[in-house]
C-alpha cells in the first residue's frame, strides 16, 4: 500500500479494521502515529457531536405518540358520529320536505271527518269563549276569534292538519251535524270552495287569514253555518 492510499484510507476511517490497512499501519511508526492522531481527532469529534439531549425528550416523545393514538381513536369515533349525524340530517330534511309539500285541505277535511267518528256523537254545549281560548293558543291563527256564539257547538278539539295545529268543531245544523275545521292559513295549503264525496258535501272559504272548512251532509246546513261563522268570526 503506497503512502497516499494509506493516508487517504486513514482519513476515510482511522478505525478501519481492513487487513491491508492494519498491516500497512503496523509497518511504520510514523504511520501508527498518524493514525493515532486521527483517532484522537475522532474521539474529540465524537465528544463534540454528543450535544446534550434536551431534558425530558424521551418522555415527550412517548407522550406525543400517546396523544396521537388518542386522537386517532377520537377520529374513528368522530367518523361514526358523522355517519349518525348524516342519517339524522337526511331524516330531518325529508321530514321538512314532507311538511313543505302542498296540503290538500279538502281531501284532508273529508278524511278527518271519517276518521274521527267520536266527534259526530258528541253532544256537549260549548261556549264561544272556550273556542276563543283554543283559537288563541293556535299560534298562526292571528287574531281570529268569535265575537258571539256561532250556533250550537257540540264538539271542539285540536287536530292536526299535516303538521298544522287546527281546531275541529262539530256544529248542529237544521238537518244534521256539520263539521267545521278552522285552519291557520299557510302558503302550501290548497283549498277549493266546493268539494264533496259520495256522502259529504264540503265548503271552504277564507276569512281573516284563516281557512274555514265545512263538511256536512246537507248543502243548506253548510251555507247557513257559513253565514253564521262569517258573522261571528273576525
Amino acid at each position, binding site marked *: 500500500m503506497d503512502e497516499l492510499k494509506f493516508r487517504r484510507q486513514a482519513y476515510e476511517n482511522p478505525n478501519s479494521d481492513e487487513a491491508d490497512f492494519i498491516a500497512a499501519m503496523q509497518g511504520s511508526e510514523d504511520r501508527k502515529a498518524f493514525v493515532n492522531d486521527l483517532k484522537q481527532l475522532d474521539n474529540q*469529534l465524537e465528544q463534540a*457531536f454528543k*450535544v446534550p439531549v434536551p431534558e425530558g*425528550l*424521551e418522555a415527550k416523545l412517548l407522550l406525543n*405518540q400517546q396523544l396521537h393514538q388518542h386522537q386517532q381513536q377520537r377520529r374513528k369515533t368522530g367518523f361514526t358520529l358523522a355517519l349518525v349525524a348524516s342519517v339524522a340530517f337526511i331524516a330531518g330534511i325529508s321530514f321538512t320536505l314532507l311538511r313543505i309539500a302542498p296540503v290538500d285541505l279538502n281531501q284532508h277535511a273529508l278524511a278527518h271527518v271519517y276518521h274521527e267518528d267520536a266527534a259526530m256523537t258528541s253532544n256537549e254545549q260549548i261556549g264561544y269563549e272556550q273556542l276563543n281560548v283554543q283559537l288563541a293558543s293556535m299560534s298562526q291563527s292571528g287574531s281570529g276569534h268569535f265575537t258571539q256564539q256561532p250556533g250550537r257547538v257540540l264538539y271542539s278539539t285540536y287536530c292536526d292538519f299535516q303538521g298544522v295545529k287546527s281546531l275541529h268543531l262539530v256544529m248542529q245544523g237544521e238537518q244534521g251535524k256539520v263539521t267545521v275545521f278552522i285552519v291557520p292559513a299557510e302558503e302550501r295549503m290548497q283549498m277549493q270552495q266546493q268539494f264533496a264525496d259520495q256522502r259529504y258535501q264540503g265548503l271552504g272559504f277564507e276569512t281573516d287569514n284563516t281557512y274555514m272548512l265545512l263538511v256536512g251532509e246537507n248543502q243548506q246546513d253548510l251555507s247557513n253555518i257559513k253565514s253564521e261563522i262569517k258573522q261571528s268570526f273576525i
Partner: protein
Amino acid sequence: MLSKQRRYDSLVRALHGDIYRYAYWLCGDKHIAEDITQETFLRAWRSLESLKDNKAAKAWLITILRRENARRFERKKFDYSDVEQETLEDSFSVSTEENAEQHLIRRQIAKLEVEYREPLILQVIGGFSGEEIADILSLNRNTVMTRLFRARNQLKDLLDEPQVRGQSNG
C-alpha cells in the same frame, strides 16, 4: 397493540439521543432539532410495521429524519434561511476549559458543509460502515469515502490553524 407499544417505547429509549443529535447537526438549531425528532418518531410510530429488523432501526429512523428535515425546507423555505450554516453555533453552555475546547470543535464541525458533516456523523456516532452510509444517503460508496476524507481533512486543517485571530500579519 401492546407489543407495538413496547417496541416503540424501547425504540425511543434506545435511540432518541442519537436521533436528536443527528437532527441537531443537520439543522443547527436546538428547537428545530427537537421538532424534527418529534416528527420523526411520530412517523416511525405510524409505520412501525414496516420496520422488519430491529437492528436496522437506527438507519431506518435516520432515513425518516432526513426526509422530515427535507420536508421542512419544502414547507417553510424562508423560515430558517437566516440560520446559515456558518453561523451555526454551539449554543450549549460553555463553562469549563474542557468545554471551551469542545466549543471550538463544534464550531468547526458547524463550518463543514452539510454534505461532509452528515457522513462523518453517521460514521463517528452512528457507527455505520461505508456501505451503510452510502445506503442511508443514497450515494455510492466511493462518494461517501471521498466526503469522509475531505471532512476529516478540512477539520484537521481548521483545528490545526492557529486559533489566535488578528495576528496573522505579525
